[in-house]
């Protein structure tokens, strides 16, 4: 269990709407460069900036409400909405029929992210209030975001590996191999593709990147050492969640490439 966040030594600088307007000048730099080089992204930057403001402000109000009412079912509902949005985004990125990939990704995301969140909340942080939204929602946001990328990478790579290795897989089947054995190399490569970003993340954290959560805590006045410990928890949590989700995706999705008679589909 991590020590509570100590009170801030100095007051946090308020960011007013006027300040946000000043920050928007930086987006105008991107808009200007896009227009100057005629790369067709100026409109995208404007729409994206407006969407970011609207979405984040709405989320801010939702979080204020959730923190204020502190109802377990509302917290669970928020987590489910996050999970559904992440699952949809993940499946949209995979070139496979939705009826095939949706049950696989949604189950993998539910199990991979759910178990990770329960472990972190109950075992690592030992939350007294198990549905404390101040912890659960930001933690789950990070878990689902990473698991979403892992699931999409794993499924997409498995599909392309199975397509590219069709002749090899069939050569194994023709020798009497099980579908699991025949597709073992494709599965390994798909899993590796999904996990490499997690490994790289662990390697460079603190050197190349200062993660958003840690930066946010430091800005909010927490001790940098406590922020670091939280970040370590987050880094480990993301590695576990991505690995579990990607493993479920590839092991289940693999079966969809074979018939009951152990023949390659298509």
């Amino acid at each position: 269990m991590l020590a509570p966040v100590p009170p801030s030594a100095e007051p946090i600088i308020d960011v007013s709407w006027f300040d946000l307007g000043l920050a928007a000048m930086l987006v105008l730099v991107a808009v200007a460069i896009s227009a100057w080089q005629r790369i067709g992204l100026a409109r995208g930057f404007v729409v994206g900036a407006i969407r970011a403001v609207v979405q984040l402000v709405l989320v801010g109000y939702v979080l204020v409400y959730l923190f204020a009412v502190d109802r377990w079912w509302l917290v669970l509902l928020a987590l489910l909405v996050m999970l559904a949005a992440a699952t949809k985004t993940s499946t949209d990125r995979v070139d496979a029929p939705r009826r095939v990939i949706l049950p696989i990704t949604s189950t993998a995301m539910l199990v991979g992210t759910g178990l990770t969140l329960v472990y972190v909340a109950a075992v690592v942080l030992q939350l007294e209030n198990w549905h404390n939204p101040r912890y659960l929602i930001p933690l789950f946001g990070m878990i689902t975001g990473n698991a979403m990328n892992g699931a999409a990478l794993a499924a997409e790579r498995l599909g392309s590996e199975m397509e590219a290795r069709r002749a090899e897989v069939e050569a194994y089947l023709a020798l009497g191999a099980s579908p699991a054995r025949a597709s073992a190399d494709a599965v390994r490569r798909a899993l590796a593709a999904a996990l490499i970003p997690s490994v790289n993340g662990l390697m460079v954290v603190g050197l190349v990147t200062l993660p958003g959560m840690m930066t946010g805590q430091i800005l909010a006045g927490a001790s940098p050492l406590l922020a670091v410990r939280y970040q370590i928890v987050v880094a480990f949590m993301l590695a576990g969640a991505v690995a579990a989700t990607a493993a479920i995706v590839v092991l289940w999705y693999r079966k969809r490439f074979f018939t009951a008679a152990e023949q390659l589909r298509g």
Partner: protein
Amino acid sequence: MEETVSSAGGEFLLRDVVQEKHGARLLDGVSLALPGREVTALIGPSGAGKTTLLRLLDRLDDPVSGAVLFHGRPVTEYPVRELRCRIGFVFQTPVMFPGTVADNLRIAAELAGPERVPDSGQGGWIGELLRAVELDPAIYAERDAGRLSGGEKQRVSIARALATRPEVLLLDEPTSALDPEVAERLMGTVARLNRERGHTTVMVTHRLAEARDFSTHTVMLEAGRVVEAGPTRQLFENASNPRTRAYLAVA
């Protein structure tokens, strides 16, 4: 009406087999008996259904209707992995597994299991298999399989298919990517293996000289149907069907 290439009956029997893929009919009611311990060539123009038929024998695909029988039993009644160990399949484009030539043979032996390959724990069988396909074990056993020439890869695929001690060897245009001299030597090896090991061989070929010189029986397919089937010499010298005569004359 069942076409037969042997009055003695077949190792394989196909009964009114229909196969379709993506809405196209690839085999249109094929009934055929393929003889045991002989070399049968499947010939015919592209799209005739030769490869489609061959794949059904190893259950790499199942027909949409009809039955394929192996030793009198539908292939669907055999455990599929056991069936595939008993039937070796050599693909048109040889696929080498990662590793050496010996690794490729070991993988096949491991998949077949100790019941079918009792001496796989000792090294001698690798040399024996390589010699059977006319590759010197001292030169080839430890070579990277991925770096071999097309002809060498095809010989390794035949050796790998033989590693499971199959009763049947199916070859899908094994010489299509090889130059004529290499192709002829490979077919000589196939014919010799058939004589020495006594397994049944069924091969798809576009090269009519291969069918004429190396097979004992020939089946002529066209548009998913059997046009004519019989002993190779009879079919080549005195084909009864005008379509067969026309194909042989043009090809």
